[in-house]
């Protein structure tokens, strides 16, 4: 691990100045569960670590049944699922927040960090996509908003420009008769990187017999977490049935373009995409009915 300096700005403006001054030679520290390990293993090098946890906006966590949920970019997982109201309103997001690392990791790991780390296998990203999450970005030119599904551009790369950083994530309030679900496949039951992860959100008709709309996203099967728009659209207006769900699962599988690596072959990943998509949509439907 190479030497670096450390700064703790207390405002968004100060952080923007620091990051702009250092350009590529600075990086943002939230929970550090990716960053510290990457620096230690010399997978990354930096001159300045900008710890954003002292900035109020990055620690905000608020939910309102009318306007939805705002999560500061540095809020650790445990605070999110530790809030009973939020946990009840966004169970699909909790599925992921509860499985990032072990309990100790969840004491620090943030959704913002998970998103900005831009791993194709980042577990919280598919559920954030299917919940129509939006990222608020601050930078030298003020703030801008980007849909979570457009945020990651390649493994480890995002839309963030030099001097920009993520301030918060926003999710609309859940609709009536809606449900979301996230599940990943790993060989163990905890402490693993997803071989495949699938998130789904569905809105059902009043009698819960058909899909009004659906969103499906898949992790670890492409260079970025993949929003499979067509798989969700294929469910819209269709009856809730094994057959329609299977069709969506096939579309998700077809959209997947995984690589083979030590976590699984491309073939296995495609197979799992269809299995998990089916199970996850069923799980989301179940939640929508509850």
């Amino acid at each position, binding site marked *: *691990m*190479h*030497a*670096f*300096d*450390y700064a703790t700005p207390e405002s968004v403006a100060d952080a923007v100045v620091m990051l702009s001054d250092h350009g590529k030679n600075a990086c943002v*520290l939230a*929970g*550090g*569960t990716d960053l*510290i*390990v990457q*620096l*230690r*293993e010399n997978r990354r090098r930096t001159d300045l*670590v900008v*710890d954003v*946890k002292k900035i109020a906006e990055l620690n905000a966590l608020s939910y309102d049944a009318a306007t939805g949920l705002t999560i500061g970019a540095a809020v*650790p997982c*445990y605070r999110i699922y530790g809030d009973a109201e939020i946990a009840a309103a966004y169970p699909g997001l909790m599925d992921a927040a509860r499985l990032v*690392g*072990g*309990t*100790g*990791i969840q*004491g*620090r790991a943030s959704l913002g960090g998970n998103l900005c780390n831009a791993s194709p296998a980042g577990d919280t990203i598919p559920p954030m996509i299917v919940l129509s999450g939006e990222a608020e970005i601050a930078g030298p030119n003020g703030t801008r908003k980007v849909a979570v599904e457009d945020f990651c551009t390649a493994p480890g790369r995002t839309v963030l420009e030099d001097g920009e950083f993520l301030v918060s994530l926003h999710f609309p309030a859940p609709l009536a008769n809606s449900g979301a679900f996230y599940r990943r496949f790993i060989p163990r*039951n*905890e*402490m693993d990187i997803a071989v495949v992860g699938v998130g789904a959100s569905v809105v059902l008709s009043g009698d819960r017999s058909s899909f009004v709309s659906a969103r499906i996203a898949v992790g670890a099967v492409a260079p970025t977490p993949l929003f499979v728009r067509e798989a969700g659209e294929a469910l819209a207006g269709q009856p809730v049935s094994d057959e329609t769900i299977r069709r969506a699962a096939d579309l998700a599988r077809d959209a997947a373009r995984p690589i083979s690596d030590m976590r699984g072959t491309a073939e296995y990943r495609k197979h799992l995409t269809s299995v998990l998509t089916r199970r996850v949509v069923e799980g989301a439907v179940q939640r929508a009915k509850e």
Partner: protein
Amino acid sequence: MSKKVHVQTTINGEAVDFLCEPRNSLLEVLRDDLDHTGAKEGCNNGNCGACNVIMDGRLVNSCCVLGVEADGCEITTIEGIGSAANLHPLQQKFLEHAALQCGICTPGFIVSAKALLDENPNPTEDEVRYWLAGNLCRCTGYDKIVRAVLDARNGA
């Protein structure tokens, strides 16, 4: 090397000052500079829990925290959980259940289990297993560890 930073923190209830480089992890500072060697290094990347400490009431892997981040924080390490004269119930139960063999993982398990019982005094076996999944033990197969924690519950 970069400039050392002055950090003021509280460890096991005592105010502690130290100087460290920003790249030093909290685990390194505890072990190498502050003589708190109870926290162990098993992986140095968040996967074994041997280094676990409680930071502002929350369980963290100290290898994944920078020493400089401890500024203004309250930290509890295994050394602060109990002593020979005054063992914490978890420590007593670990002894009674023979929940350690080599013992290298034991401080991490006890710190983690304490964080669990602080939050949930009556966990089920599943909850214990879920909470402790980030702590690896290679000697015991976990059976006696899980029993010890269950036996240390309030309601036990």
